[in-house]
């Protein structure tokens, strides 16, 4: 992995926001999916990136999609799985 995870996730979210016709800027605790800013297809793209680039295990029974609703939550999930 060449880029740092936070930068990679931030860039991915910004690109998805632009693709959805939104401003690329977002706050760390801003709701991305529950607020309707991004749709489920964007969630799929983000999940694929999280799986492929950060190695997040989506098949964990305790994983809920709501855990990727904000940038801060994604980073918390990534660090939690990294230390597990």
């Amino acid at each position, binding site marked *: 992995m060449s880029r740092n995870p936070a930068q990679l996730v931030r860039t991915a979210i910004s690109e998805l926001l632009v693709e959805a016709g939104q401003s690329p800027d977002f706050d760390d605790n801003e709701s991305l999916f*529950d607020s309707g800013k991004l749709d*489920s297809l964007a*969630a*799929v793209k983000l999940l*694929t990136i999280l799986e492929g680039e950060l190695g997040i295990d*989506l098949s964990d029974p305790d994983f*809920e999609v*709501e855990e990727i609703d904000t940038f801060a939550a994604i980073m918390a999930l990534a660090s939690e799985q990294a230390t597990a």
Partner: protein
Amino acid sequence: MTAIDAGLRPQPSTSLYNPLALRRLWLGMDRNDRAIAWAQSWFGIAVIHAGLVLCLAAIPYISNKHLALITITLAMTAVLPNRRGIVLAVMGGAYFLLRPFRNSTNDDHFFGIWSDIGFVTTNAFAGTALFGVAFIAILLLLIQNQRRKFVPLVADRPVLSLFILLVTLTGITLVTPHDSAVFQSAWVIVAYLASTFFFIGYILMAARQKKAPSNTTLLGFVRPVWANSVVPIKGPGYFAKFEAHTPEDLAVTRLKGLKLAVWAAILFWSAELIFAHGVKGQLGFPGFDAVIMATAAGEGGSTGFNWLALFVHFLEKVLLVGASIHALVALIRVIGFGIPRGMVSPLASRTISEYWGRYLFYFKELLSDFFFFPTFQRCFKNYPRLRIAFATFMAAFVGNVLFDMISDAGTFGLNGFGDTITKYYSYTLYAGLLTIGIIWSQIWQSKPRAEDGFFRYHVWPRVIVIGFFAVLQVFDDSSGIVPFEDRLVFFLSLFGVA
């Protein structure tokens, strides 16, 4: 823009006699400091709540009894905004105990068999309340199991476990005589579970979250006071994110709610005036079902007439469904949860999957939460396109059809499997076509770009999307009132096939 440009540019009029200026003021009131301050005063709170109730009364989707319950709840949350969770639990609990089924067939059957059961009391309303209390007690055990994992298998797969229970009990109602105690016991549980299945699903999902809501909050979502159908508007975990915690946030949320309630009333009465009174009343245009049956009987109009009937029905439905979902979201906002709208300009969509998300946002969310993401997390990880396609199939087809069947599970035991399943032929084809459309849209449909030109950006994609969803309306039905064969004949007639 320079200061000189700004000086020369005509400024928007703020005159109250200018309808456009009034519209601007109205739409911007949740960002207007004076309006926000007014909305925090007792007078403002009273006006907003009265305005909401008037708008809800003007839209006849909500029965008078339900409106009375809503009005009492609104009064209590207005007086006790910091006790919102308890108010919702108490009023939602009362709603659930009094009207557990949200289905008149099940109501009638329960009242009919209650005299046979006659446990403790012969009063049928007391009977529903007794069963309701027992049901809530079992639900509390399930919630505790989610928190503590006493039975890990159920805690890890709570919705699947509920589904297996529902299918087993429905199977029992199909094979046992109607007058047996086994049938009656199984049917009552099926009827209770069917009307609350996805509400409970969201509750159990919220109960396993790291910051799980309290039991009181969770119980307010078994049958939230705003629920007038079996489609939940997400669950307690989601609402927690949108709850207003300060007087200013609450004022903004309430103003947004009032705006949406007025918009819902406008949409509803526009549909009534244009379609019910104008097109059907004054012009004598027949209803959509009548056109389908006439075509099937060989007495229909031309192909052009059938297309016209299809688009009239489609546009009327979009307006009425929009009014209905806006009214509920408006109510939720005035209670204090600033959730997003349930429908956002669907006719402006440029792709099929975009329309699907914009038209019925919360139903799409339900299918995503219970079917799409669980499948996506587990299946075909090494095949990206197949992975998306299969997860979409599980949501838009399997989940879509199952949702209707689960909600109608009590009917299987009452009317038999064959008679009940016949109703779903049409809806199954609808879900199949919808699934093909969404999968195609997600994987292959290119999103139009502004540089493609006016026609290819603004017009053609919308013609495709609106045409696709309009044609789908032919099969979007699980009532079974118009036979599937008639719908098929009408569908073929649209393409000149007699």
